């Protein structure tokens, strides 16, 4: 991802999008929809909000493609868009976090083994704990664990230094460990 510039196929795709070709938009959407939605969902922990964030991200992507100059990798540019959309949504509206999400998921699958239920419960608790982190810390955690980005890549996406990324991640870990220590 850190390699600046585009592959030929991707460059042609972007050019087609700039010309307003609808099919090209669809191809671009298919290539990045899961990444965008995953970040939105893991950041917001709300499916409806994640849909709003993903929609905003793609609309922003399609409308601002002419401004993309290829200075950074295209995926970095998309990550920036989704990160900004997440943080914008965070600023605009807040909601009551659905902490019972894990419980509902558990009730939906009564046939699961006890172990699976415990794992599911643990995942819900971890996600709930992640939700309590500050937006900047949470985004670093999501980019690291959902997308598997390196410190360098996260720094490029978030416009900060690698040291800041490491510091945020370290503080996030400590905060999460404190919250989950009773589990």
């Amino acid at each position, binding site marked *: 991802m850190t390699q600046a510039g585009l592959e030929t196929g991707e460059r042609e795709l972007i050019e087609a*999008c*700039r010309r*307003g070709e609808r099919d090209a*938009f*669809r191809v671009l*959407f298919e290539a990045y*929809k*899961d*990444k*965008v*939605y*995953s970040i939105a*969902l*893991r950041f917001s922990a709300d*499916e409806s909000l994640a*849909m709003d964030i*993903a*929609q905003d991200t*793609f*609309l922003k992507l*399609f*409308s601002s*493609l*002419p401004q993309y100059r290829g200075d950074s990798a295209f995926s970095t540019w998309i990550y920036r868009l989704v990160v900004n959309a997440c943080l914008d949504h965070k600023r605009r509206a807040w909601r009551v976090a659905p902490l019972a999400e894990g419980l509902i998921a558990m009730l939906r699958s009564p046939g699961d083994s006890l172990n699976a239920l415990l*794992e599911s419960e*643990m*995942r819900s608790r*971890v*996600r709930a704990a*992640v939700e309590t982190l500050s937006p900047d810390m949470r985004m670093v*955690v*999501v980019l*690291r*664990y*959902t*997308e598997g980005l390196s410190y360098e890549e996260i720094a490029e996406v978030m416009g900060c230094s690698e040291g800041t990324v490491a510091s945020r*991640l*370290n503080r996030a*870990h400590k905060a*999460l*460990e404190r919250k*989950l220590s009773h589990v």
Partner: protein
Amino acid sequence: MSDWMDLQLAHSLTPVKAPDALWSRINGMPEPARPRWQHSFRRGTLSAVAAAVLVLLVRATAVELRPPHDDFVANSPVPAKKWLAHEAPVQKVRLEVSSVPSENGCKNCHTL
């Protein structure tokens, strides 16, 4: 940073598939905005065409409003008579213009 925490985060924050409804939502939105230069280019083209049409209309109107071209101009009846005799094969012409004092003219110079 504990391995346990690392593992828990990796398990809990796995990527997910985007719902199919996402494309429907995006597809239902208005067409993506065209680049600004395309807007200005199109606007400029339309302006140029509109200006050209306006110029043509003004010119056509000016032509319509212009007085009809005179076939012949004279300040006395004699050349008028000659011209009429030449252009339309008539020999006897009576001029009734306000500048002519009477039907027979002034008898000196305007007698036909």
